């Protein structure tokens, strides 16, 4: 099974120069297009948040709810995870499987901490009565930040699955492409978070 798939891959590479385009390159290209659609989704949620962020319906507003110090810690953690994800790709390019898996694990761990902090923040807010149904502002807040959190969570599951695949199959063109794609995804979520941090938190507490 393993050897046949490897043979497949080699054969596959030998016929790349004519008739058939490089599958792995095309998949990466497809993922870029997917990222554009995801930008549109986040863009819609950002627009919604900007339109609705003053509609607090007499409930708590951004300045009442956000604690910047906690968010800065979260931001730092996510930025670090982006860095470790970059280290994972460096390890990939050097062909070091163990280092690659290790850095991915660190990245996933940091991502998990980020999600943990976010859940904690949400739970805290809900506890104070700032639920989604309290006001349009809070609906938009939970949706925007929660969608980002959901993306990070999906990324975590994916990353774990990828670590398993790497340890079983090693670095092949397929797993290599997968690592590259998840690092794209991870950096993308980092960029989105920077916007969330600026638009929601920084501009909120001002």
């Amino acid at each position, binding site marked *: 099974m393993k050897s046949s798939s490897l043979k497949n891959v080699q054969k596959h590479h030998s016929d790349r120069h004519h008739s058939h385009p490089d599958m792995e390159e095309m998949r990466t290209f497809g993922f870029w297009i997917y990222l554009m659609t995801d930008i549109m989704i986040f863009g819609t949620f950002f627009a919604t948040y900007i339109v609705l962020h*003053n*509609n*607090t*319906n*007499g409930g708590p507003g951004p300045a009442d709810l956000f604690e910047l110090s906690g968010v800065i810690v979260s931001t730092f953690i996510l930025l670090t995870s982006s860095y470790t994800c970059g280290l994972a790709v460096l390890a990939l390019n050097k062909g070091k499987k163990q280092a690659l898996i290790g850095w991915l694990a660190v990245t996933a761990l940091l991502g998990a901490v980020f999600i943990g902090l976010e859940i904690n923040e949400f739970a805290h807010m809900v506890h104070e009565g700032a639920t989604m149904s309290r*006001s*349009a502002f809070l609906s938009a807040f939970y949706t925007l930040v929660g969608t980002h959190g959901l993306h990070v969570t999906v990324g975590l599951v994916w990353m774990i699955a990828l670590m398993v695949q790497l340890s079983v199959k090693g670095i092949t063109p397929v797993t290599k492409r997968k690592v590259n794609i998840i690092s794209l995804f991870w950096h993308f979520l980092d960029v989105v978070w920077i916007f969330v941090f600026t638009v929601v938190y920084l501009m909120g507490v001002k």
Partner: protein
Amino acid sequence: MKVPKKLRWLATLSMLIFMLLISTGCTEKIIVLNPKGPIAEHQRDLMLISTVLCCIVIIPVLILTAIIVWRYRDKAGRKASYSPNWAHSTKLELIWWGIPIAIIATLAVITVRSTYALEPSKPLKASVKPITVQVTSLNWKWLFQYPEQGIATVNELKIPQGVPIRFEITADSPMNSFWIPQLGGQMYAMSGMAMTLYLQADEQGKFWGSGANFTGTDFAKMYFDVDSVGQDQFDQWVSKIKSDSPVLTLDGYKQLVEPSTLQARSYSSFPEGLFEMTVTKYASSHNHGMSHKDMLDMSTSDDHDSTHGEMPGMDMSH
């Protein structure tokens, strides 16, 4: 090709019937093209101008299409030329990028001008002071309040001829659209905000209006009569309502809001600031449309008007 010919006959026949239907007594029912006020008239003219402008291109193109299809059909011994590789001509292509650009440019100028001229919230030029009618879309009827006269009606709108009417439109229902085709175009009725629409009737007569935006089960029953009458008649009508009709109380309004259909009816007075209350009920939690403060300002100034002229009348009805 036997079949299509037969069917072409059928097509001609059906078109003939269609023309006949139009020409026999339906024309005056085409009310949008039969305006009774300055706004609707301007809009009618605009429709006609833009149609004519577009037809300058479209009719020749339709004729050209027929000629080309006929002339270049494949047929033994036809005389028309055949040049299978002729696929580009900068000159020709410039012409047909140019023609639509020219037409659209002309139309664009007309459109922008008239968009500003016909902006619904712009007061109409007139020698007389406009009267205000506050319109509320309810499920499934219209409530008209005349703050200056202190009366209210349901599904019946009486207006003096030649006087600009300032409609303030809101909804205590899903979004609706307030439309009196013979007086002018429509305006959305939305909760939490008061839209302004100026209309005027130049002639006396009976027209009708409707809710043009779907609001649920009995939305199709939201037609209302519009009666344009002379100023004297209008004043008589107002004083008759003041003396004969019941009072609209807050509870009465709450009943009106409940989904139902109603015949036309009238009220000799309504709770003070009812319209503003309806608007602010939904607007208080928003930052769009009118702010709370604007609304308060508006209602106090309106109160001002009504206290001067109408207070005694309202007292009498008690």
